[in-house]
């Protein structure tokens, strides 16, 4: 029991680290909470734009109000600096400058002399499409209607098309992808917290004086190792439970649906892999300072290359290939799969069972490596 208690005593000393990583999970794992709409029908993406209106006319106001309907108008200070910053940081993807004389130019058959700034991403394309469509419509219809108010209402009427859209998915993809992003990010904090703490605790046990003290004690080394193993397993379970509770606080009942339970099972298996990895690393590395370096590299490499920070679909092919040799890849793959799977059934879930099996194989490999490494250490 002394060993067991000591383990937790050391864990307690590092609670700052655990809290730090957990806070990170809460902040980054649940980011984008603002787009919190439950959608069972189609929701159009609206580009974020800035409009600088220098033409105080009816037609210019008409253009502004059209964009108020069809885009999100971003409010920034009206200085070029603020606008340029907004474009760079993608606060807005498109800026429309309506020049003085826009109305006259349009009525005379021109394009309005509009100037634009664009961030070059796809939402800026959408904004440009909206603008082009509007300018074309107003150019054509201005030939027919001389009264500006009638012209605007005819343009708005012509552009007010709402085609029928059928969304085939029955699952709430937005909610699920958020949950899956939470768990994906958790792969990083989980590895970091489990590896960090277990390696640090075990390295305290391995300090030369402590080690000698343990060796001369009357306790059998097998019993000692058993306690360490139980304590570290309990610790990993504690971390998974903590993260599940946090998921419940953030996502509510979704956490404990059938799908949610699969996420938890997956996380549980992954934490087991992390535990085995931690035991292996702590056998290899006895030095406390080296521990933090190695843990950071192991945790960050998996986070960057396997999709914990950046969604897998955005990673280059070559990186994904490399990621196959890292356990976090298989964990995240399951999460992403679960977020998109329409119907849950045993056969449908086959890829998940395979991923879990691969994770268990990883764990077994770490156990074997650990045995080999510790045997070598014994000989030395």
């Amino acid at each position, binding site marked *: 029991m002394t060993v067991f208690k000591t383990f937790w005593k050391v864990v307690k000393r590092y609670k700052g680290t655990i809290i730090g990583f957990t806070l990170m999970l809460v902040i980054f794992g649940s980011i984008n909470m603002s787009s919190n709409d439950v959608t069972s029908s189609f929701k159009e993406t609206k580009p974020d734009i800035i409009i600088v209106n220098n033409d105080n006319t009816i037609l210019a106001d008409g253009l502004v109000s059209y964009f108020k309907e069809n885009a999100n108008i971003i409010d920034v200070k009206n200085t070029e600096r603020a606008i340029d910053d907004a474009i760079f940081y*993608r606060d807005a993807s498109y800026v429309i400058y309506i020049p003085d004389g826009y109305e006259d130019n349009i009525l005379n058959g021109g394009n309005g002399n509009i100037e634009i700034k664009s961030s070059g991403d796809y939402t800026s394309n959408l904004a440009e499409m909206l603008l082009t469509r509007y300018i074309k419509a107003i150019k054509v219809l201005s030939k027919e209607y001389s009264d500006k108010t009638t012209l605007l209402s005819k343009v708005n009427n012509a552009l007010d098309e709402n085609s029928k859209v059928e969304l085939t998915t029955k699952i709430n993809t937005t909610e699920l992808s958020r949950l899956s992003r939470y768990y994906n990010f958790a792969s990083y904090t989980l590895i970091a917290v489990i590896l960090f703490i277990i390696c640090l605790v075990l390295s305290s046990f391995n300090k030369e004086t402590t080690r000698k003290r343990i060796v001369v004690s009357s306790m059998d080394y097998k019993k000692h190792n058993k306690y360490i193993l139980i304590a570290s397993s309990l610790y990993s379970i504690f971390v998974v439970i903590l993260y599940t509770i946090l998921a419940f606080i953030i996502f509510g009942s979704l956490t404990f649906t059938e799908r949610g339970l699969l996420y938890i099972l997956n996380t549980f298996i992954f934490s087991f892999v992390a535990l085995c990895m931690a035991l292996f690393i702590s056998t290899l590395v006895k030095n406390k300072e080296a521990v933090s370096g190695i843990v950071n590299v192991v945790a960050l490499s998996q986070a960057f*290359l396997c999709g914990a920070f950046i969604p897998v679909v955005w990673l280059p092919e070559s990186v994904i290939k490399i990621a196959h040799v890292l356990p976090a890849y298989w964990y995240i793959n399951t999460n992403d799969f679960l977020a998109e799977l329409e119907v849950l059934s045993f056969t449908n879930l086959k890829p998940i069972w395979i991923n879990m099996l691969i994770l268990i194989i990883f764990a077994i490999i770490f156990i074997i490596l650990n045995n080999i490494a510790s045997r070598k250490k014994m000989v030395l």
Partner: protein
Amino acid sequence: MFIHNFKYSLKVLFRNKSLIFWTFIFPILLGTFFHMAFKDIENNETFHAFDIAVVNSPYYENNTIFKKAINEASKESDNKLFNVKVVNKKDASKMLENKEITGYLEFSNSDVNIIINDNGIYETILKFFVDEVNSNKKIIENTVNEEISKGNLDYQMVISNVMEKLNETVEFKNISRSNLSYTMIEYYTLIAMAALYGGAISMYIINKNMPNMSSVGKRNSTAPIPKSTLLLSGLLASLVVQITGLILLFIYTIFILKIDYNSNIWLIALLAVVGSLAGLSLGCIIGTILKTNENAKSGILIAVTMFLSFLSGMMGITMKYVIDKNIPILNMINPAAMITDGFYALYYYGFESRYIFNILSLIVFSLIMLLISSISLRRQKYDSI
């Protein structure tokens, strides 16, 4: 004596494996991860023609307006919207299920139905396309009605005129700045982080000179040498180590990762050096002011550095923008943000006042930190026990 201490400080620093790892190797590793993960991210965010399907039916075959519009939009050109496949309904829904297509169009008697599986930008663009064709139909109807009411009965002519106008390309004058790659900020924060990690080096040197921290400190304090000589030579050695680390980082990012810093390399180097000075001074102040053990000090230093880097956008550039926009004062006193913002200004706006302001802020910050540290170090006495 200055040179003697400088030499030994350098030796001590270069032999400290953990310091060398964090200041030399860790930023390079992190840079490699950034490079691997961010390589495609901006490319993914630009528009690419996407795949759709159309359900083959007599309704589609007879809908000449849509057929023409779809052909036009899927033609190889700069304005190509999508690749289209005409298939039967079963195949279309299978393709949608397998995510081979963004969505498909199904035509009925007078209407068209858009079937999609998700909410997103490409789905929106598909809907936009269908809306636009319908709007164009309306515009043509409106125009024809107006022209007929005005007595112009040649509606074929009117239609072809309007169609021509609707198909014209409308160009807008693009006055965006170049250099819009926002992943650059990540590399800037990386350099900022590496510069601030210099704090660990200077703190190590300070600890070596403080009698309450180590036996070497006790030995140094009893030596008949002015404190200033000891400290300045130690700090100079730290700066040398720090700059060596930064040079390695620059060489690695420029020549191996092929990062295009896209402006005067000397101005970048100047900012990096001034940034390192700020990092060193941060380490000094934490090392001198806090009266606690070495581990606690380095824990606090890392926490402070991480927090400052976080505010300056290391874990997502939005953070820097949000603070710049809402609480600008916070980033004006944050050395990590000064470094990042200096690089950003240089990259985006070129060499001008914003860059110079950041350089000056960093110098002022370093001087204040060093001043406070030296005041707290002066005339330290230890009671006889």
